[in-house]
């Protein structure tokens, strides 16, 4: 446990400076630079401290923060009290959509332990998987997927295997190979650890589709990533875009019919099934987050509402949205809660409708129906 740090700062837009010098936190805290037309309406509260690049996530119901810093720790936002759940620092974390469970990937030697904890931090289930798990996401109240990346070094380069693990917390995790590739020694020297961390994964709001990046390093060419949209029910994949290794991959936006991704020089909001680009943002897209209803996008520190940039934070700021317009930012050694944003929470679909749409999406992914047919049928199904 650590002492509570509750400095609340109202962010004020100051002349042309990008640094809100008026923001100050308790001793030991850094300030969160902010600018932009609506910066004055936003507030930032330092919630907790966490090491740079450490995994963290926010419980969607009670805002409890799980983070991997000196072990797996839970932070009570109201009191700042930290509870240590496991000694190893996790490589990936995710709260379940209902906020009742926490999934963690706990590295240990050549393998990783997938673990599920209750909201209070009690261990519920554990299962080992080979290699290193870099991402973990919930796909149902009791089931999760994890992205494993295995590396074997040879004289001619590194053989990299990306594996998707599905685990329901009871049986052994089921593995599906997403891709295998060989990376040249030169690429390893130039990109180092980023070769592995460039392989990303994001889950759709309905949790039946995922975006992941597939690494390619052909001889005589520069390495690059392909953003792949995969339906988790059918296993069918769609090649969405080709981007450089510096890309932060893709994120689903709103209902999941749109995605945002960075191509290294700009970021694009697009409809992946029609390849239609809706909007282009002047930011490379290394750090991306989208609010649950799609009202806000955070791209390399630029906070957009629709097409309009409403505030700007440092470009390396990592963001996580929670339902209701809650935004948490990780900058430097601190996690901040940003106040002043609002977003209505979409009403959940009736289970039968959700199931029908899920089936239609699986059919669309396999080419059994077209995107137009999916949209027409969705409209018909959604009519009460």
């Amino acid at each position, binding site marked *: 446990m650590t002492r509570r740090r509750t400095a609340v700062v109202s962010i004020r837009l100051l002349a042309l400076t990008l640094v809100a010098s008026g923001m100050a936190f308790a001793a030991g805290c850094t300030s969160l630079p902010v600018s932009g037309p609506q910066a004055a309406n936003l507030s930032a509260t330092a919630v907790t401290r966490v090491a740079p690049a450490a995994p963290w996530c926010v419980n969607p119901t009670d805002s409890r923060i799980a983070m991997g810093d000196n072990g797996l720790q839970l932070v009570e936002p109201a009191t700042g009290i930290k509870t240590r759940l496991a000694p190893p620092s996790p490589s990936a974390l995710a709260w379940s959509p209902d906020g009742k469970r926490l999934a963690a990937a706990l590295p240990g030697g050549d393998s990783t332990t997938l673990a599920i904890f209750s909201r209070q931090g009690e261990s519920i289930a554990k299962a080992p998987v080979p290699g290193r798990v870099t991402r973990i996401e919930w796909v149902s109240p009791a089931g999760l997927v994890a992205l494993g990346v295995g590396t074997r070094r040879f004289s001619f380069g590194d053989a990299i295997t990306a594996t998707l693990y599905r685990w329901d917390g009871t049986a052994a995790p089921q593995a599906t190979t997403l891709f295998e590739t060989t990376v040249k020694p030169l690429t390893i020297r130039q990109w180092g650890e980023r070769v592995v961390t460039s392989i990303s994964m994001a889950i759709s709001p309905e949790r039946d589709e995922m975006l992941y990046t597939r690494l390619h390093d052909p001889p005589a060419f520069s390495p690059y990533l392909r953003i792949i949209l995969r339906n988790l029910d059918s296993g069918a994949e769609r090649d969405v875009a080709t981007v450089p290794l510096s890309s932060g991959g893709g994120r689903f936006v709103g209902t999941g019919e749109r995605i945002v991704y960075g191509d290294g020089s700009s970021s694009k909001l697009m409809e992946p099934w029609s390849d239609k680009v809706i909007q282009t943002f002047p930011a490379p897209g290394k750090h991306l987050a989208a609010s649950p209803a799609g009202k806000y996008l955070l791209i390399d520190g630029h906070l957009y509402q629709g097409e309009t940039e409403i505030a700007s934070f440092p470009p390396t700021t990592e963001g996580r949205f929670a339902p209701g317009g809650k935004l948490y930012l990780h900058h430097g050694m601190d996690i901040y809660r940003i106040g002043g944003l609002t977003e209505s929470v979409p009403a959940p679909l009736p289970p*039968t409708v959700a199931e*029908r749409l899920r*089936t239609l999406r699986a*059919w669309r992914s396999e080419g*059994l*129906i077209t995107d137009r047919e999916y949209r027409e*049928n969705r409209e018909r*199904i959604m009519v009460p």
Partner: protein
Amino acid sequence: MTLKRVFPMVFILLLAALPVLADECLDCHRLKTPAAVRQWEGSAHAKAKVGCAGCHGSDHARLDTGEIVVDQKVCGRCHKKALDEHMKSRHGMGLHSGWGCTRNLPGRDQNECRHCHEEGSDRPLSAAHCARFLKQSSEMGELGCNRCHNVESSCASCHTNHGTSLAIVRDPNVCAACHMGPDHPQWEMWQTSRHGTLFASAGPALGPTCQSCHMARGTHNVSAGITMNSGGIPYPADQAKRGREEMVRICADCHASAFARKELALGDGIRTQSLTILKEAEQLIQDLADRNLLDPMPDKRPPHPLSGPQLVLDSQMLYEDTSHIERLFFKMKKYDYARTVKGAYHQNAAYTHWYGNAELKMDLIDIKAEANRLRERRTPAAAPAGKIENPATTAEEQLRVLKKKAGRGELSESEYEREKGKVLRGMDDREH
């Protein structure tokens, strides 16, 4: 003396030396292979003083190990025109049509590579492969496949090894060694056709032989005048038209061209009608496969040697490791369709009708009955009591079937869209 004068003299001297080389071989081979020697001594080769070494070379050690083979290239050094014609014909791809790459199969002879590859090259001489060959044991491949399909590289398969008698190769019996049996009984068809019976009773003056029509005027291009591939599928129109004109010219040596065209047109009509029947059966089986109703399905049996775990109904279809209905289709296509069509072009009434057409139509009855049986195994009535089929599962199966049909071109774009709409709306109805 100029070089131009020296070379012919050296060549003549070498030719003169060949009998001497032959004599060297004969001393032993009169004892070891007396029949070969006798045949050679009576051959045109002996009269022309082409000795053993002229074809076999003089490296006895390599001859003993089988490294030196007298194939079509050796013959082609002198018989260039015949070899050129042969290579243009279906005989010229006899091995290619029968083989796939064998290097990964167990128990294969490394020397087989030369059948498909130039030495030192891994590029196949032809893109054609044969799945049925790849399923065979080495022994069956050698005796049951290669004895006929080696016609490409072995002139001896018709001409014999050491004889050169034209009487042998102009006798239709020489063709019978391969062109007979259930899949392509051309020899039997000819033998019992008007052409064949006249040959039997009145000789070649009245009864044309295989060679009269298929090696007309001595050509080695046995495929001249043909309008379909070996599986009985018509050539593209331009190619077929050229073939037809060639055949009419051959027929016109005995018949009026108009008569020949009319007779051949009868064959065309029968071929078209038979293809329609064959296509109906093929679509039935594809539909069953689309619905996972074959027993066993391709992914539940040994993989096809060329296509893997897929349904194969084209010229590479197998007669083993398939479902029963595919076995019925194999007989229908490879035996009965072939007999109907080839019987028609050979003007053999019985083969066209009773051995061909009647069997073809009865095959369709069998295939339809088997298809019904397979479908009935999946009807709701046959499902376990209380088990209700999920509407989404049913709709998905229908959508998969439609997608495959559209992929095969059996549905137009608009038909495909309309049928999908019906499935999706039907799903709504069932849900409500």
